[in-house]
């Protein structure tokens, strides 16, 4: 179970709260949709859940304990909106996948549906955005995460590619019992992929009680 309990976050003490007392649960193997307009703090919440940002108050727990930083891959893997920004432009796809600690065998054994072998020695700008997003997904899955947070991962892709990536993600996560938090502004998309949808509206600016 991935839980956020009364999470508060702001970018600097002079800034308004971006997250004010957020509670959220995602059970193992569950797919939850997080919907809301841009600027509503969805991406911030996604980054807090994956440990990129530390909440100012409240806790994020996986199975009751806070994930330890720097002790191997985080159990909550975040896949980001812009596939081309999530891979070092100076790296080949192979090197990006190897950063997970996966050996050559594991990379070679990757499902062709996810990552084609011909991409491995190319650079990120030499494959398309949709293909690169599949690489990012594969990279997250290689760490054997407990949860995947998908933050607008198909927002810049066409509908066909979007449907294909979600089919891949849902199939893999279902098979491995991975819980998914699908973040999007597109309610119709979330209705397709999620079993339950949580709405996020921008918080009114109040300090913690």
């Amino acid at each position, binding site marked *: 179970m991935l839980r956020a309990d009364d999470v508060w976050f702001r970018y600097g003490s002079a800034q308004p709260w971006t997250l004010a007392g957020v509670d959220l649960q995602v059970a193992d193997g569950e797919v939850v949709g997080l919907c809301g307009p841009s600027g509503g703090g969805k991406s911030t919440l996604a*980054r807090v859940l*994956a*440990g*990129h940002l530390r909440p100012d108050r409240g806790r994020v727990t996986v199975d009751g304990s806070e994930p330890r930083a*720097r*002790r*191997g*891959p*985080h159990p*909550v*893997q*975040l896949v*980001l909106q*812009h596939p081309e*920004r*999530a*891979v*070092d432009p*100076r790296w080949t796809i192979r090197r990006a996948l190897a*950063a*997970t*600690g996966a050996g050559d065998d594991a990379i070679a054994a990757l499902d062709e549906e996810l990552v084609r072998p011909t991409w491995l020695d190319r650079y990120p*700008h*030499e*494959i*398309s955005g949709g*293909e690169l997003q599949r690489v*990012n997904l594969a*990279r997250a899955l290689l*760490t054997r995460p407990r949860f995947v947070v998908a933050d607008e991962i198909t927002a810049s892709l066409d509908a066909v590619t979007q449907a294909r990536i979600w089919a891949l993600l849902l199939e893999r996560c279902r098979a491995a019992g991975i819980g998914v938090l699908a973040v999007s502004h597109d309610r119709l998309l979330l209705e397709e992929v999620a079993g339950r949808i949580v709405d996020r509206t921008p918080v009114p600016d109040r300090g913690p009680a």
Partner: protein
Amino acid sequence: MSAAVAVPVPGRLGDRRTRTLAYVGLAVLVVLGVLVAGTLAGDAAQTTDLADRNLGPSAEHWFGTDRLGRDMLARTLAGLRLSLVVGVAAAAVSAVVALLLASAAAVFGGVVDRAVGWLVDLFLALPHLVLLVLLAFALGGGTGAVVAAVALTHWPTLTRVLRGRAREVMSSDYVAVSRQLGRGRWWIARHHLAGHLTGHFVVGTVLLFPHAILHEAALSFLGLGVDPGQPSIGILLAESMRYLTAGAWWLAVLPGLCLLVVVKLVDAIGENTRALLDPRSHHL
């Protein structure tokens, strides 16, 4: 579209990159030539011939001779060599200081980053040349003092460039992803930062050379630089001052011009290398 197959196009000799590379190659050759010639001219630069004193430029002595009858061409070449060596040493030390500070700021962040930023601002706020003179004076003059003084005054600008670039890398999505894969700061420094900083570091270092060379000459001119017995350009210019009124223009003009040309060449090497490495002009 990125996934498209590339069609090879034959390189044309007239394209910009070929010209730039040719220019850089030529400049490097000239600078190397000066180094070699300066080394070979070492003895000739100190050979006095009192029969041929204060001669103007001629076929025998292209740059004329000074008050002790020493050949000014040999002295200029030897001086340029000395200036280059001192300048390069100082620039290299400076660049290493910049790299260490910028990397420390990026890797440790927080207090270290703020401290480095403060230090850079402090040094940039102080008048450059005054600080240089004070340092050289405090260190007691001589070649070592010049290298140290120039090195200690030239790191801030490069540090700022490298720190800015490092910050950009550290706040990128791909570094965030490496962190969530469980990679620590040293791993990120080695695998992400190093690659992204190398180009800036090389170009920044080369662009430090001309500054360092000119400042070495300035210090020597003021008598705070290399040992007066050695023919540095700064010393040649200082000595020539007394004879300018007597009409011995060649003593100052020719070595000065040569210094200008060499500095301009080194600067051009840096600027052209930058243009080649800069992604915005890379493919033009």
